[in-house]
């Protein structure tokens, strides 16, 4: 059978199956092949908080969406072009997202009565006509997988069956003309201790590929040309890995050893886990008994001259706040990563949200100002981590860096930076008395940055004590003097405000005649950008600006905002940045707020922007 090859400029595929079906791995591999092939990519893994909910149940469905294109793309895509559903529950929870007329590939073997019941299907959707609007490919994936594996010694039936995700992957690789060698190498590597399993998975993978080539069900395959990105060497990266690399880079560039104190929590745990592999970089990771000890240990390490870092998500960040208040009083550098997830309380641990902005800004007793920056894309996390460390070390202050569950797990192609191109972070410990009379005052400030000296234990002659009680500016001695307290309160605030002097002005992506600005922060960068493209394509003049610095704001923010008649602030919360800009600049900005635990779709934002412009 001859098959035709069609050209496409972009495709969105969603893999969906049971938690035990290996969908995350399938998605990852497909993404890797696609990235290496040279497409631009953006991914959205989506999995339940349970380790493995009951097989076949609705809460047990795990999904992975990948968007790839021959041009620059910004999001994992609103709606899939192709849905691969490995069982009825996966079909049930995902079919509503599949636009009419698009492709649906189902593993028919899983559509047995038991699974249909678990998914709450009264009748079999493959048979009752309810899928008539889609291009359905009914494939006996399990059967063919088991078939393909036959004859390989030492594989149990269960193991054979579990290779079915590789069959699906092979099929999709054929369908979109993906290279295959990387996956074969990967499988061999992963199962190097059990070659029979490797052989089985490879067999299934090849069988899937071959099925595409031969089956009548598929008459067309597709080609998506490589994207024309900025030239250079690329790799894929997700946000948490990028943070890890950025922290290590900051350690190298500052010359300070990295100390991470952390307590596991979704979606932040992988930062601890990955950094634990950096021992040959002199990185010390400490899994503490709780979040308080985690940040405490990082602060202790900072007192000793390390680049102290801690990482957590919402509930853990809350627990750390008392210690962060101490760090503010001590004026010691500390980097705190908050990988935001849906709240309040335990909330929805694997889902992204932007609801921690207020918490990181204000969740401490007393006036306790703290710099806050936010990463916007998985790859940008690398630079955000370096910048957080730079601010912390330069101004001797704890710094919050906000990421979220979407950035943490989402992947994109990443132009690999060279260490040589990354600027040094100059850090000078104080080693000599800083007063004419030969004494050392731990709170004698730098005139420009207002930073206090950092004299670490081991430095002879500079022995001193610091603590959480209010202290006299200069000497650092305990002081209950009212005017000193007012002064110190203002100095701490000014020091943070003064960071604005050392950061870039806010850039606006502007177009002729725009009277409306869309202002975003954090991981909404992609969806907002995609929405702006759409509305401009529709002929609307709308400008876009994205904040990476939330405290202090870039110094030109007020001026920028006042240029427009209308300002829209989309946030995955009920309007936190919105409140800050309204209060500070008295502009009547309006919010687009959805708290659904899923990234915005470009289409909903485009609608919201259009509505505002036309209002």
């Amino acid at each position: 059978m001859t098959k035709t090859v069609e050209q496409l400029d972009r495709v969105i595929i969603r893999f969906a199956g049971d938690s035990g079906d290996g969908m995350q791995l399938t998605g990852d591999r497909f993404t890797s092949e696609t990235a290496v092939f040279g497409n631009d990519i953006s991914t959205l893994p989506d999995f339940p908080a349970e380790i493995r909910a009951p097989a076949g149940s609705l809460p047990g469905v795990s999904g992975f969406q990948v968007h790839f294109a021959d041009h620059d793309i910004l999001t994992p895509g609103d709606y899939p072009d192709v849905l691969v559903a490995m069982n009825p529950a996966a079909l049930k929870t995902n079919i509503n997202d599949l636009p009419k007329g698009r492709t649906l590939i189902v593993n028919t073997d899983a559509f047995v009565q038991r699974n249909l019941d678990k998914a709450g299907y009264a009748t079999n959707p493959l048979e009752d006509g309810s899928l008539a609007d889609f291009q359905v490919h009914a494939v006996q994936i399990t059967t063919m997988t088991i078939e393909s594996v036959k004859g390989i010694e030492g594989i149990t039936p269960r193991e054979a069956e579990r290779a079915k995700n590789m069959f699906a992957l092979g099929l999709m690789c054929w369908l979109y003309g993906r290279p295959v060698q990387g996956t074969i190498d990967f499988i061999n590597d992963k199962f190097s201790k059990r070659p029979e399993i490797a052989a089985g998975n490879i067999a299934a993978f090849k069988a899937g590929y071959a099925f595409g080539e031969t089956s009548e069900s598929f008459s067309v395959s597709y080609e998506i040309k490589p994207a024309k990105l900025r030239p250079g060497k690329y790799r894929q990266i997700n946000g948490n890995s990028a943070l890890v690399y950025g922290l290590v880079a900051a350690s190298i560039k500052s010359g300070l050893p990295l100390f991470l104190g952390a307590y596991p929590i979704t979606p932040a745990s992988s930062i601890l886990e990955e950094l634990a592999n950096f021992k040959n970089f002199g990185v010390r990771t400490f899994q503490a008994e709780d979040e308080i000890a985690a940040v405490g240990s990082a602060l202790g390490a900072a007192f000793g001259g390390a680049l102290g870092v801690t990482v957590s998500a919402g509930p853990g960040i809350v627990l750390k706040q008392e210690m962060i208040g101490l760090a503010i009083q001590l004026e010691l550098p500390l980097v705190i990563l908050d990988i935001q997830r849906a709240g309040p309380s335990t909330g929805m641990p694997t889902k992204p949200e932007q609801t921690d902005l207020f918490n990181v800004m204000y969740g401490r007793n007393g006036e306790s100002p703290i710099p806050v920056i936010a990463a916007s894309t998985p790859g940008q996390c690398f630079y955000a981590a370096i910048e957080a460390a730079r601010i912390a070390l330069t101004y001797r202050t704890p710094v919050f860096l906000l990421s979220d569950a979407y950035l943490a797990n989402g992947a994109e192609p990443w132009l690999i930076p060279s260490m040589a191109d990354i600027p040094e972070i100059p850090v000078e410990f104080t080693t000599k008395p800083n007063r004419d009379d030969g004494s050392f005052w731990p709170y004698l400030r730098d005139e420009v940055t207002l930073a206090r000296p950092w004299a670490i234990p081991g430095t002879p002659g500079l022995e001193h004590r610091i603590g959480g009680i209010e202290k006299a500016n200069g000497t650092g001695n305990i002081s209950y003097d009212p005017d000193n307290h007012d002064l110190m309160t203002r100095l701490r605030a000014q020091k943070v405000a003064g960071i604005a002097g050392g950061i870039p002005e806010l850039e606006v992506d502007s177009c002729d005649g725009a009277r409306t600005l869309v202002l975003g922060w954090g991981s909404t960068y992609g969806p907002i950008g995609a929405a702006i493209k759409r509305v401009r394509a529709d002929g609307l003049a709308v400008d876009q600006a994205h904040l990476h610095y939330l405290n202090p704001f870039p110094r030109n923010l007020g001026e920028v905002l006042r240029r427009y008649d209308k300002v829209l602030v989309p946030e995955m919360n009920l309007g936190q940045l919105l409140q800050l800009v309204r209060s500070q600049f008295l502009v009547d900005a309006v919010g687009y707020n959805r708290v659904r635990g899923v990234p915005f779709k470009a289409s909903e934002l485009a609608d919201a922007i259009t509505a505002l412009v036309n209002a």
Partner: protein
Amino acid sequence: MSENGNGGGGLLQLTAKDFKSDQEVRWCPGCGDYAILASVQSFMPELGIPREKIVFVSGIGCSSRFPYYMQTYGMHSIHGRAPAIATGLSTSRPDLSVWVVTGDGDAMSIGGNHLIHALRRNVNLKILLFNNEIYGLTKGQYSPTSPVGKVGKSTPMGSIDRPFLPLSLALGAEATFVARSIDTDRKHLTEVLRTAAQHRGTALVEIYQNCNIYNDNAFDFVRDDKANRIYLEHGKPVRFGADGEKGVVIAEDGAAHVVDVATVGEAALHVHDAHADEPNHAFALSRLSYGAHGGTPIGVFRDIDRPSYDELLTEQLATAVARKGAGDLDALLGSVDTWDV
């Protein structure tokens, strides 16, 4: 004091005065904390460690003001968290001598978890727990070491909860070193500090400390009545009393009991082994003073050798370098699938 040879003291000619900071001491007149401060300051030169290599970290409480008065590096942190902060410092700076000063509220109430975790990890910390069986700084509420029935500000009808014995808890938490001393017994306290300082890993020293404002005389039974002090000495039978007429046996039930030496004979007495692998006898001794307010063991209950947390971590770092070579981030970033545009 600096003639002592431990740790190269011969080179450094420091005295107690060198360890006094310029800060005015702000405890109530008569507070037991003064005596402890004096003992620590006069012991420090013995360490033979330069002042800049010594750090005192504390939590919050009267006792936790301690670091301000020491001419070393110091941090007066937040309530209960000193062991956590000190763990980060000690783990990242194995070259330092890190001391924690804490109170019974700070260490046993809000900070209990950090304490037991530091102990099991055997972090290189010397923890001085000033136990006055009361909350001093907040003006007289009962603490987790106050005896049952304690009438305090928050317990007008007497407390109803069984107190912790700090040393029993520590032994249950896999401590490698636990000891007890008394604020006013300078000679003994100094001896205990010396042993603690030499210990590898976490050393917990409980110090009975009189709070003359909110819990005066809590320890009179052993502070004033010296005949009640059972000085534990490694390798020696456990005897005490004005003329050593009393002793301690480990009985059938595994518990330590006070006996008349004349009755049981010296041979029946428990011979103290501070270095015993198993903590059972130390545990039995740690429970001896319970409520009885009679004979109370002081000294080093347990002191065994186990690698400290920072040693093991440093070793892993070295092994990693040996195995993978010193880190090269450029190489690492490119070590996965890459492609060129």
